[in-house]
């Protein structure tokens, strides 16, 4: 049947996967950049270790391990990996990052993770809305 010649769904599916994984990777990198921006805006830079420990993991690779020297008894948390090209990680590897973000008994929270995520959410949705334009098939 000639119908099989018009079946573009496999190509569409492949292109959609590629476009979606590109969006995930781009959003992840932008999320990491937004976290860094918020750390700067919050005035959370003393030694620079925490801001330098922000990293991203995408299908294109990882930026983990580019942090400066940990001050005092601070240390770098292990890298968080991804299990496929539809995942991305933007994280802060400084062990005290969560205390800065959520606060402690002695420290009010100065969030940089959630505000960055809220900022990037709109961008993510806009990119998803433009998904069709990224799929160059048929």
């Amino acid at each position: 049947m000639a119908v099989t010649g018009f079946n573009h769904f496999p190509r569409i599916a492949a292109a959609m996967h590629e476009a979606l994984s590109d969006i995930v990777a781009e959003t992840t990198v932008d999320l990491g950049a937004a976290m860094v921006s918020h750390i700067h805006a919050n005035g959370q830079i003393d030694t620079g270790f925490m801001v330098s420990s922000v990293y991203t993991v995408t299908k294109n690779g990882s930026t983990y391990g580019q942090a400066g020297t940990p001050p005092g008894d601070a240390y770098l948390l292990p890298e968080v990996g991804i299990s496929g090209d539809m995942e991305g990680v933007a994280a802060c590897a400084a062990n005290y990052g969560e205390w800065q973000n959520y606060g402690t008994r002695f420290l009010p929270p100065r969030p940089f993770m959630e505000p960055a995520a809220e900022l990037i959410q709109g961008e993510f949705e806009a990119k998803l809305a433009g998904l069709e334009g990224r799929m160059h098939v048929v």
Partner: protein
Amino acid sequence: MSSEIAMCYAWVDSTLRADSALMAAATGGVFQGMADIGTAPPFAVYARQSGSDVMTSAAVRLWASILLQIKAVGPTSQWAAIVVIANRIDELFKDVRSVALATGGVLSCYREQELAMGDPPIAGQAWTNLGGLYRIALQGQ
């Protein structure tokens, strides 16, 4: 009104303080941001975690979407009381709709994420936090 955060803080604070079970467990009290140094634990703390305005296409603000952390804090040796406080917090804020305030009101409140983390040890004693991040839609007027 531009002080949705202040309205939110006032509503959360008064809701927490009005709960006798919570106040019985949170013997140190309820604090905004962080507890006073020297406060005897356990206690409850709330603070803004994030937020954004929800607007029309013409940039008219409809409401503020506020992400608030509300949690119990104390040494791990007081874990039982910390759990009681966290449970009461969740009971109070996990599913709230249409609360009228002096001006405006809370449109909705629900938990968006659990929160549990250890604090740096204090004098060799481990401390912990337990609570959640609550999404509060609050209309100023």
